[in-house]
């Protein structure tokens, strides 16, 4: 029972980790908390759905197409809206991303209606393997594999490519990066694109478990926020750790305390962590300048 809960917690935590990672990538670079993250991912999942069902593409082509769409969408939103805000404050940026969230939600439910659809996926949640006393489904394994390989790719990207290093430089000090000849605007666009792709990957893993409708990503987005807060909003590794940790905590709570109120855990984690250790478990402590 205990190990089962932990293993399925890790599997579900992988999607939280991806959502958290997507948010932290943007937050770290531009100090924008992206409330449109979930709906950007939701829209990409719908694009994948349309490519699969209406255009009859195979899974690799459809998912690649949807990921390309996600990248373009993220880059476009940064270019068209976020960049236009002059001297924005925190509230202004939050409101812009909320506005974008509403636009995307409206477009998606206009285009596809608000009824629930089944998202086709190559592996099923019902084919399971038993390892010892622990049962794990194919979908869980694929989710874990996708999440871990994306994280590895991101790590390599930040470590070894020029664009990745430029991104890290922008995260540390935007003005200095600009003075060193980095085109910060382009880096921001790239950041939004990458973040959108990561979020979309999470949505592809979540949609087959749930049903596909415009409200698909609201709960995962809150879980993503919660994981990011748990791990520290300014740490990529922290966000990933926070995601897995939240998945496990949530599952243990559901198993031993109450399944009914499992959804409260994410909120409780946010409140407790923010009160006890606002910078998160894995990030360095942050002090505000006056």
């Amino acid at each position, binding site marked *: 029972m205990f190990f089962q809960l932990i293993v399925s917690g890790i599997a579900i935590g992988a999607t939280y980790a991806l959502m958290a990672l997507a948010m932290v990538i943007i*937050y770290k670079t531009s100090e924008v908390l992206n409330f449109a993250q979930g709906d950007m991912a939701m829209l990409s999942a719908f694009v994948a759905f349309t490519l699969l069902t209406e255009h009859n593409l195979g899974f690799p082509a459809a998912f690649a197409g949807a990921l390309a769409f996600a990248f373009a969408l993220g880059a476009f939103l940064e270019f068209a809206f976020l960049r236009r805000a002059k001297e924005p404050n925190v509230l202004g940026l939050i409101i812009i991303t909320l506005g974008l969230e*509403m*636009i995307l939600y409206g477009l998606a439910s206009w*285009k596809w209606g608000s009824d629930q659809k089944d998202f086709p996926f190559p592996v099923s949640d019902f084919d399971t393997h038993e390892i010892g006393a622990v049962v794990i489904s194919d979908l869980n394994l694929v989710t874990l594999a996708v999440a871990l390989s994306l994280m590895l790719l991101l790590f390599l990207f930040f470590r070894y490519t020029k664009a990745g290093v430029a991104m890290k430089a922008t995260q540390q000090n935007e003005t200095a990066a600009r003075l060193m000849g980095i085109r910060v605007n382009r880096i921001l666009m790239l950041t939004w694109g990458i973040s959108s792709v990561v979020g979309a990957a999470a949505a592809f893993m979540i949609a087959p478990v749930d049903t596909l409708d415009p409200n698909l990503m609201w709960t995962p987005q809150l879980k993503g*926020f919660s994981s990011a807060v748990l791990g520290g909003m300014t740490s990529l590794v922290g966000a990933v750790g926070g995601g897995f940790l939240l998945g496990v905590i949530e599952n243990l709570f559901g198993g031993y305390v109450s399944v009914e109120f499992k*959804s409260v855990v994410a909120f409780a984690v946010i409140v407790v962590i923010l009160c006890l250790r606002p910078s998160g478990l894995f990030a360095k402590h942050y002090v505000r300048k006056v």
Partner: protein
Amino acid sequence: MEMKRDYYEDLRLLDSPAQVFWLLLLLAALTALPFLASNYLLYTLNLMAIHVIVALGLNLLIGYTGQISLGHAGFFAIGAYATLGLMTQAGLPFWLALPLAGLISAGFGFLLGLPALRLEGPYLAIATLGFGLTITQILGRLETFGGHMGLQAPPLTVFGLAIDNDAARYAVIMPVCVVLAWALRNLTRTRVGRAFVAIRDSDIAASCIGVNLTYYKTLAFAVSAFYTGVGGGLMAFVLGFIAPHTFNIMVSILFLAMVVVGGLGSILGSVLGAILISYLQIELSRIGSLPVLGPLLMDISTRFFTESGLPNVQYVVFGLIMVLIIIFEPLGLYGIWIRTKLYWRTWPF
């Protein structure tokens, strides 16, 4: 934009005789309306008045105190459920249940204000968003409140009079709205209101000059939640039926949109914003039957989108309004009003 020359001028409720005149005219119009207007218009006005109450409460929190909340649909839900619960299960009369529900909501506001002491900006937004999402999920699980199926509002009587049509509901809702607006105007002129504004401008500076942050931040949350809770209690009777999904996250964002579109830190702005957004909400939800725009959008829908999803265009419009307001006119409708006024002040010179 009037120049305040001394302290007592700043303390006055109304600035000029002209303002008194317009206010009296407005009150007279509001009193005369139920005898003149159609039922549909009164229904619209009821919704607007409730949204004005909520926008006032939210503006006190965001515009005056500088604390973000994305969870006000949660307080709205608490107010609605508490009012119905107190009336049907505790058997209290409406005039007692409504303020009590407001106080219960304020209690939750106080609780949410406690973590807010440690949080700012984006973190507070996340925490309040989580609150809003969680409240509706909990309400969906509570069988005493009908779970996901929701609750039917009981027949309403106030002081022995049956409130069963829109004109009667107007007579209940509008006075509450006016009194609450007047109370907020008063609150912002007092020591408390100044403390809120000081916290908004710089909480560290405010605590240095002796503003108790713990007290005033939680107070701002509580008062804001009280307004929203009262609004929710009234809403239960206008809708006649409430369910957890009545109070989803979109409702919170719409409340935020009202405040932002109207103008942060302005009572006139909250009123204008609430009226505009509620009007758009009502008109856009039946966008397919509008005269010129309807057939055009219907045509676009059949070609590229779905017809059943057409009412969701309202979210696109609201989203665009929010984004454009922040980019081009951060002061909102209130800012436009001020600029128009200044422009005409010296007319024709």
